[in-house]
């Protein structure tokens, strides 16, 4: 599905530009002088050893944290100063799934969809991720892989054009990984932008346009 000219047919004007970004965490400089830009339809793959700042970079891009120096520009705005109505545009999936353990899969998905004013129906997602069996089970009873898939379903429910995925493939089996790759392709095809950090770059290389090695 990946094609070399993936990003071009959306017009090359970049929507996400990162210029000379510096990220510090806990007083330690993690990341220095990082610049890249992504146009609609492009996906960046963030690779690097543990502690190289992959997670911190994604949290800064999401607006959860503030960079020590440099600028991030998403459609002319800075993520950590986005007004609430624009925040639906960025979807962040961290190491933790962001699901309430005492709610069932269904309840979690419905809450995510209504709270994020999302689009798309819940039913096809549940079918696609083969979650029908555990749909009414409490999230705390699911396996890590199933929880990851529910978190990915939440991601799809959000109307976000920018996906920030922190190692989405953890705990996923082969089938789950294929779904992630397929979704990334579809997201890019729809003109979405994604920044994905991973320890297995070769699995996701097909879906990526640029690689950011920290």
């Amino acid at each position, binding site marked *: 599905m990946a094609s070399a000219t993936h990003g071009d047919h959306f017009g090359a004007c970049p929507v996400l530009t990162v210029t000379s970004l510096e990220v510090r965490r806990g007083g330690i400089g993690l990341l220095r002088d990082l610049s890249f830009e992504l146009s609609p339809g492009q996906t960046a793959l963030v690779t690097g050893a543990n502690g190289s700042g992959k997670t911190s970079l994604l949290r800064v891009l*999401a*607006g*959860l*944290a*503030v960079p020590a120096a440099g600028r991030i520009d998403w459609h002319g705005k800075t993520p950590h100063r986005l007004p*609430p*109505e*624009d*925040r*639906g545009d*960025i979807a*962040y999936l*961290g*190491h*933790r*799934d*962001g*699901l*309430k*353990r*005492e*709610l069932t899969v269904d*309840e979690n998905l419905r*809450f*995510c969809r*209504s*709270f*994020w*004013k999302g689009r798309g129906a819940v039913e096809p997602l549940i079918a696609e991720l083969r979650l029908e069996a555990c749909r009414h089970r409490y999230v705390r009873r699911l396996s890590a892989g199933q929880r990851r898939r529910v978190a990915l379903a939440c991601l799809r429910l959000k109307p976000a054009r920018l996906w920030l995925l922190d190692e989405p493939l953890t705990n996923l089996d082969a089938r789950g990984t294929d779904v992630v790759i397929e979704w990334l392709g579809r997201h890019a095809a729809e003109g979405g932008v994604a920044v994905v950090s991973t320890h297995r770059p070769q699995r996701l290389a097909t879906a990526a346009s640029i690689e950011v090695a920290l």
Partner: protein
Amino acid sequence: MLDVVLHILRRDLRLAFRRWSELATPLIFFVIIASLFPLAATPDEAQLRSIGAAVIWMSALLSSLLALDGLFRADSEDGSMEQLILAPAPLGLVVLAKIVAHWAVSGVPLLVLAPLVAMSFYLPLAALPELIAALALATPTLSVLAAVGAALTVSLRAGGTIIGLLILPLTGPVLIFGTRATELAALGESVAGPLYLLASLAVLAVSLGPLIAAAAVRTALE
């Protein structure tokens, strides 16, 4: 804007009732503290009546502090707090909704329990409506203060232990006006003064508190 509050409210209330044991602990804590006082003091009626107001209000204060200790910690541990911070809704409103949900399950039951405990402290029946009114005005302030404490310590391992140290000095005014209202009620005098003061504290807390708590959560989880 209101749907944001409703979604969070519905979700948090559903969560609270799913773990009802966590819900009941602060209320039982309230009754236990109140009933330990006679053991510590004397069973004598006159003395208990004189310290009754203080006992009720101290127990209410400590139980509401305990009830909101884990308000943000549960969400920050499973990652849903990050999603709430990034959600397309003002974080202050989200935090207010969470405080209202937790107040409903910890503050409101106090309005039922406190009169029962007050009666056991020989408070005259006529004074109970005023006690309920005073508690109804004071518990929001206590919930907001406890929420600010919970937000400040959300990312700390031993966060729960220092909430008391941070927040109890700030509950002084509520304690003063609350006990005064109950004493005046016991004497049958008009309770308007302290009630107005409690109401003004509640308005200040409910308007500023969620903003500070939201900033604290965002900063602590940065």
